[in-house]
């Protein structure tokens, strides 16, 4: 495929790098050094120029492009770029959007601004946070097959009831598959006898109900509605609070700027908005921070989010979720005690990658900054899986592939050794990154 990417920032570079191996990629950026650096690192064609300029786009041969991705940091630039490109190309046009207002406009009309798919960064991040918050102890949650299947990632603590237990004993659920164990830098594909160690992270795939029950088993004393504090009235903070209140929760949100606080308070009727500096200890004590179950740090800088998360945890809050803009800090944050670090760019990259897998993968979840992926794939006649029991077809699949769940005609099928996969089934598979290309070709 021929892919044109406009914007060589963090998101653009990440997408370009992951696509360059198997596709032809051209990257356009107004900043020449960005383009140059990227050209040294990866096998792409770089063009320095303004993506909203039709001449620049034509220089990149966009009339031949299969996919065009606008992912600069500026919404308006992305929208104008897409609208401009639309006039000369038949390509599938994807745009990254921060603000939810453009998303709403786009959802209301067919192909507004000439955009075929919008990846709304802030909204996706808020959705990720809201999913994680909904599941006690979870670090990541993704939805597959229109909500029939969930994937969740849990960290096993010292006190966890499944620490030092074999997978066979821990997996007592009918429709739950232990897909992988992340142990330090390695990915372990669990067998029945694999012992789960404290510090491991397990990836489970299964029905939402079973995952919910499993999560409650890991954290037995988290019943009832959690007491949630969102710190920061950024777009992400706002959308997180909105999604939480839509679920019937009553979150609190702290914002320092009076006008912004007022704006959010007017828009969210079930959220208690507080105007204060959150690093003020007196304020935190007055609002009973020790009663708060989950603190979500969504301020505009990673450093502040780290500080707030650590401070509130020290003062007695249960769980801290922090937004981390720089992907390389995700591990660091989780190491120093933040329970979940959510990277907005990862959420965006997941969205955009979905559309570059030759429309075969229906859905993608990226695990731990690209160490593995969970894919939803529709099985066709060519697949090695079709019309065979899984026990047999497994031998033809590369190592590091686990079939987590199968859906057939809108119903969940639990994969067992004798399950026969049929044409049209959706399989949700865990794949290590090394096996990813081979696996998606064969399935």
């Amino acid at each position: 495929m021929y892919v044109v990417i406009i914007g060589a920032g963090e998101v653009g570079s990440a997408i370009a790098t992951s696509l360059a191996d198997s596709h032809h990629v051209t990257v356009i950026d107004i900043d020449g050094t960005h383009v140059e650096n990227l050209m040294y690192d990866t096998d792409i064609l770089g063009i320095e120029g303004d993506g909203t300029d039709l001449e620049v786009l034509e220089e990149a041969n966009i009339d031949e492009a299969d996919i065009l991705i606008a992912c600069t940091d500026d919404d308006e630039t992305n929208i104008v770029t897409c609208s401009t490109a639309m006039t000369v190309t038949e390509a599938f046009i994807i745009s990254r959007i921060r603000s939810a207002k453009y998303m709403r406009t786009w959802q209301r009309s067919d192909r507004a601004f000439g955009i075929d798919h919008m990846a709304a960064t802030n909204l996706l991040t808020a959705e990720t946070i809201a999913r994680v918050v909904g599941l006690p102890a979870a670090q990541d949650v993704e939805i597959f097959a229109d909500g029939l299947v969930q994937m969740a990632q849990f960290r096993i603590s010292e006190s966890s009831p499944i620490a030092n237990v074999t997978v066979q004993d821990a997996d007592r659920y009918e429709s739950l598959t232990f897909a992988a164990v992340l142990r330090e830098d390695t990915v372990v594909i669990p067998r029945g006898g694999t012992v789960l160690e404290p510090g491991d992270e397990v990836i489970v795939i299964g029905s939402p109900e079973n995952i919910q029950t499993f999560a409650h088993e890991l954290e037995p004393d988290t019943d009832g509605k959690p007491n949630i504090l969102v710190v920061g009235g950024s777009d992400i903070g706002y959308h997180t609070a909105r999604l939480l209140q839509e679920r019937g929760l009553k979150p609190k949100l702290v914002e320092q700027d009076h006008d912004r606080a007022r704006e959010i308070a007017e828009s969210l009727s079930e959220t208690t908005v507080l105007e204060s500096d959150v690093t003020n200890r007196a304020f935190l004590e007055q609002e009973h921070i020790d009663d708060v179950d989950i603190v979500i740090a969504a301020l505009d800088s990673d450093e502040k989010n780290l500080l707030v998360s650590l401070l509130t945890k020290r003062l007695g809050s249960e769980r801290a979720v922090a937004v981390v803009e720089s992907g390389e800090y995700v591990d660091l944050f989780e190491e120093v005690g933040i329970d979940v670090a959510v990277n907005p760019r990862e959420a965006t990259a997941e969205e955009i990658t979905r559309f570059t897998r030759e429309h075969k993968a229906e859905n993608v979840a990226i695990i731990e900054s690209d160490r593995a992926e969970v894919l939803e794939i529709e099985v066709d006649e060519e697949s090695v899986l079709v019309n065979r029991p899984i026990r047999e077809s497994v031998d033809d699949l590369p190592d590091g592939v686990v079939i987590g769940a199968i859906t057939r005609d809108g119903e969940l099928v639990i994969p067992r050794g004798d399950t026969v996969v049929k044409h049209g089934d959706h399989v949700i598979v865990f794949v290590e990154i090394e096996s990813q290309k081979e696996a998606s070709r064969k399935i």
Partner: protein
Amino acid sequence: MSVRVNWRQSIAFTGTVIKYLAVAMLVPLAIGLLYGGDIVVFLLSIGITVIIGAGLERLHDDPQLGAREALLFVALAWGGVAVIGAIPYIVAGYGTESALRYPINALFESMSGFTTTGATVTAEISFEQHSHALLMWRQLTQWLGGMGIIVLMVAILPEAAVNGAQLIESEAPGPELQKLTPKIAETARLLWLFYLGFTVLYVGILIGLHYAGMAPNMDVYNAVAHGFTTLPTGGFSPQADSIAAFSPVVQWVVIPFMLIAGMNFALFYLLMQDNYAEFLRDRELQAYLGANAGLVVVLWGFLFTGSAPALELGGVTQGALENSLRQATFQVASLLNSTGYATSDFAQWGTTSQGLLLFAMFIGGSAGSTGGGVKIVRWLVVIKGIRRQLFTTAHPDAIKPVRLGGHVVDEDVISAIYGFTLLYLLTFGVATVLLLLDAGRVGLEMTILEAISASLATIGNIGPGFGFLGPFGSYLEFPATSKLLMILLMWIGRLEIIPVFVIFTGAFWNE
């Protein structure tokens, strides 16, 4: 400092309003021709009205009202109309025993009419004392004042439409003007159309009942006369016994129309567009109907268990299921939204029932209705504002907008509502004391409850009070000074205080 308000323009425009009042006087003239009596009175009144109106108009040949001139005009127009409306009472009373022959009484009756108060200073309401024509004029003043003479002006006079939004804003009840259509004249026309439509429907039903034999006393004259005073939440009746003079069926028919009169007329625009869901979702409408229903249920209980003695008007309510429900529903529907009709002499009811009615009188109709009082929507905002205050005392950093039916109420509007409500209660309290002092001065025996109800019934444009001011009583006994005070109260009550008070501030007149 020089005077910055071009008052000549305001007065000239008031002249135009007065001139058109002469047209309204053709109605009682026609009644006079039909029933006989007071033909000369109305011919003379029309003549005087036209001369005064045309004379005032000459003060300025092309009035273009600015913001302050508009405020002054609205206040003057309501004052002027009340003065002119008193002329037929004085002329008709000349040389008779009628209490209305005195200008102060005539002005009281006229102001009470236009402001839809319904308090009366007549000694006796009967066709022996007053002609059919004069009593119909009394009814008509309420109908003209109900939806508002300024709204009517904007609806029919193109020159008033220029500054129409501001004019209506000063006159319309409620904190904010709701524009239904982009053109204000069209909005005004729609409001009057709803008003006229309900009036016609109501009169039609009453006449129908009469000819069906279910309402022997409700002849065409009475049907029209009550049509003129129900929708404007007026309360005047050409019958001394008010609605108690009619059959229970009539009383039941009056109740829903009184309830409609207390609703926001802008809401009927939603019904016109088949938007029933939004109509029913309106928080003020829900609160208005809820308050009515709640009070009715409690009062019904009181009356059923014997809170009222057996009365000549109203009958026995103790143990009488239908009568106690009817009396409770009617009195609450009438007093809560400031109509002032009665089917029972509630001034003789027990203290608990009277207390309940006094409470109802504090509530008032909806914003954008023809009702008086503080208005439901303001109480809702005040209550929610207090709740917010209590919440922020516990959480000093919390930002909590006040919401009404999902919409955020602007902070400026909230403080304006606090200001209005406080001013209303303050004026009511001060006036109560002044009435007591004045009564003491002339040796008039008056209880505190009577003084409170007199003050509340006039500033809230309700009409009847308690004690000797009951629904079948009269304000005649008050000294002239008290009557003057109450005329002022009715005037400022109708215009919701601030547009009148502002005229008496220095800042209004100077730059």
